[in-house]
């Protein structure tokens, strides 16, 4: 991209100061015309094209970042199709340190028309106009405020899906000449096909990760990781990869090279993801190979065929509703409560346990249980307690039968409070099929209410608390459970 020569003469310090004073402020006008990005909707109907992510950063966010980098203090996004999700995401722009406002234009409005409609915003200021659906190649380490405001006559980049240019004031637009004025520091690439998306994201991962503001920690070269990411030790991560928040990568998986994993994603055991984008909230099932694909929920898109496959059985893919189940607060609380309980129970458990071993009226059996409605399983030590003997009763009253489970709670493998652990049987699998909120816990909701297992009341309370679970509620449920057992 950068073989052009410098297009403006180097200025003296005084000139720079002068210019800097002249330029009071610059605003950015982002025009999202449906005709430029309609093609995206056929693949991602659920959101505005501008919200499609590259390396877990929405395309619009890249534009906003660049505008701010170029010294824009105010940004207006003008859309000719409703963009509620866009406004929901960017709100007033406080998160980006710029004032972001919105406008609506009509399909087929000319630039002149749009400027007129947004007159109050555009008048007496210089404008950076981003008109179209494209990706801006830039490098955050460069100073674009200087570049754009000092470069005569600004910049004017054009590609097949739009153009980005700078005007001294809105009047200049009418007399604006379309001859391109490139600059070595930035260029724009068209976004006309899914392949463009995939190729750009791969390019960023391979060589330009530190050119952009990507969400997550760039702990090491070629690797960006979000918060609360759980990677099974047997999983292989091949750089470069980008992992979002709340990502769980299970055993024997291979992730990368050039894989972008969005937020709230589970890659299930034995699967392989390379040269692909897994969009937010997707579940990738067992033993799948995802190569040069884009996955969103249950939709698998192959850029080569420009074809979407909607996978209808949840075993392979499924859309996950993002709930707070992954929050760090929760994990911390789980850990602490788990440790406390374990500490309290340790001695009685050993004492009583040894007595009862002699009596042979209890057993610890490792059982596979479902971890979520998708049918992911994990094995736990379940105590089969004989409640008829008095030691058995004491055992239950002190909730010692939960002790073996606390291990996995402390490891963060299991919640302290959740739904009743369902043993991995086909019958239970069916039951979970319409129960997406199911998250099991050592103590479970229905027992805090003292409902009998498999009673209709139990199911109601299980489902009710699953839907309305909050950290606070769970704490209350835990207490209720402990007390219920004591009495």
């Amino acid at each position, binding site marked *: 991209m950068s073989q052009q020569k410098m297009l403006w003469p180097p200025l003296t310090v005084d000139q720079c100061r002068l210019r800097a004073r002249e330029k009071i402020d610059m605003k950015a006008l982002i025009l999202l015309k449906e005709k430029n990005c309609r093609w995206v909707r056929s693949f991602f109907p659920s959101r505005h094209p501008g919200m499609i992510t590259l390396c877990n950063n929405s395309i619009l966010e890249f534009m906003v970042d660049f505008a701010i980098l170029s010294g824009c203090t105010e940004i207006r996004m003008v*859309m*000719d199709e*409703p*963009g*509620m999700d866009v*406004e929901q995401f960017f709100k007033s722009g406080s998160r980006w340190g710029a004032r972001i406002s*919105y*406008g*609506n*234009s*009509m*399909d*087929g*409005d*000319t630039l*002149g*028309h749009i400027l*007129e*409609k*947004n*007159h*109050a*915003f555009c008048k007496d200021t210089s404008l950076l106009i981003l008109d179209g659906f494209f990706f801006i190649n830039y490098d955050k380490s460069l100073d674009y405020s200087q570049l754009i405001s000092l470069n005569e006559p600004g910049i004017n980049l054009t590609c097949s899906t739009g153009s980005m240019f700078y005007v001294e004031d809105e009047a200049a637009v009418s007399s604006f000449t379309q001859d391109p004025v490139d600059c070595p520091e930035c260029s724009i690439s068209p976004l006309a096909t899914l392949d463009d998306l995939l190729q750009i994201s791969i390019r960023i991962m391979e060589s330009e990760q530190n050119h952009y503001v990507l969400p997550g920690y760039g702990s090491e070269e070629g690797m960006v990781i979000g918060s609360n990411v759980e990677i099974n030790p047997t999983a292989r991560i091949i750089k470069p990869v980008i992992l979002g928040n709340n990502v769980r990568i299970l055993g024997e998986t291979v992730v990368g090279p050039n894989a972008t994993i969005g937020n709230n994603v589970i890659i299930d055991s034995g699967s392989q993801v390379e040269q692909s984008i897994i969009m937010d909230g997707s579940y990738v099932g067992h033993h799948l190979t995802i190569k040069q694909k884009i996955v969103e929920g249950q939709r698998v898109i192959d850029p080569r065929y420009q074809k979407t496959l909607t996978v209808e059985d949840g075993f392979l893919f499924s859309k996950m509703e993002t709930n707070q189940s992954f929050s760090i607060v929760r994990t911390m609380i789980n850990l602490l409560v788990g440790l406390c309980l374990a500490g309290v129970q340790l001695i009685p458990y050993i004492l009583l346990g040894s007595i009862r071993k002699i009596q042979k009226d209890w057993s610890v059996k490792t059982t596979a249980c479902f971890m979520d409605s998708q049918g992911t399983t994990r094995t736990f030590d379940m105590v089969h307690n004989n409640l008829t003997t008095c030691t058995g009763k004491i055992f239950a009253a002190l909730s010692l039968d939960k002790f073996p489970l606390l291990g996995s709670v402390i490891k963060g493998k299991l919640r302290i409070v959740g739904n009743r652990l369902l043993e991995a049987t086909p019958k239970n699998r069916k039951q979970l099929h319409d129960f997406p909120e199911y998250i099991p816990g050592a103590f479970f909701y229905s027992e805090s209410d003292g409902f009998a297992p498999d009673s209709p009341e139990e199911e109601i309370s299980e489902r009710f608390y699953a839907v309305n679970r909050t950290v606070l509620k769970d704490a209350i449920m835990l207490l209720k459970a402990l007390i219920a057992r004591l009495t």
Partner: protein
Amino acid sequence: MKITSTQDNGITIIRLSGRFDATVADQFKESVQQLCEKGLSNFVIDMSDVSYIDSSGLGSIITFLRKIRLAKGDIKVASLSDKVRSIFQLTRFHRVIEIFDNSESATLSFNTLHGKE
């Protein structure tokens, strides 16, 4: 709701203020009816002081628009608050009525003729 109208070389600017809901929809219909009877056809509705609009309000604007379009005239709306604009967007009104930052530019736009792409 208060409804005031001013003339600006052939373009009528209707200023609304307050809540534009079912309680005032009829009032609005009447007052614009009077304006129509005067043979006026180009309108700018300035909503800078409209704090709230509901479907009845929107409905009465559409009725108004229908009438005006028949008379080869046009209506443009100006200075919507975020609240109001989001409803316009939700009900896809921005596809049928042109939305402007302020009534000045809306008024001007009647004179300047921009070609469509």
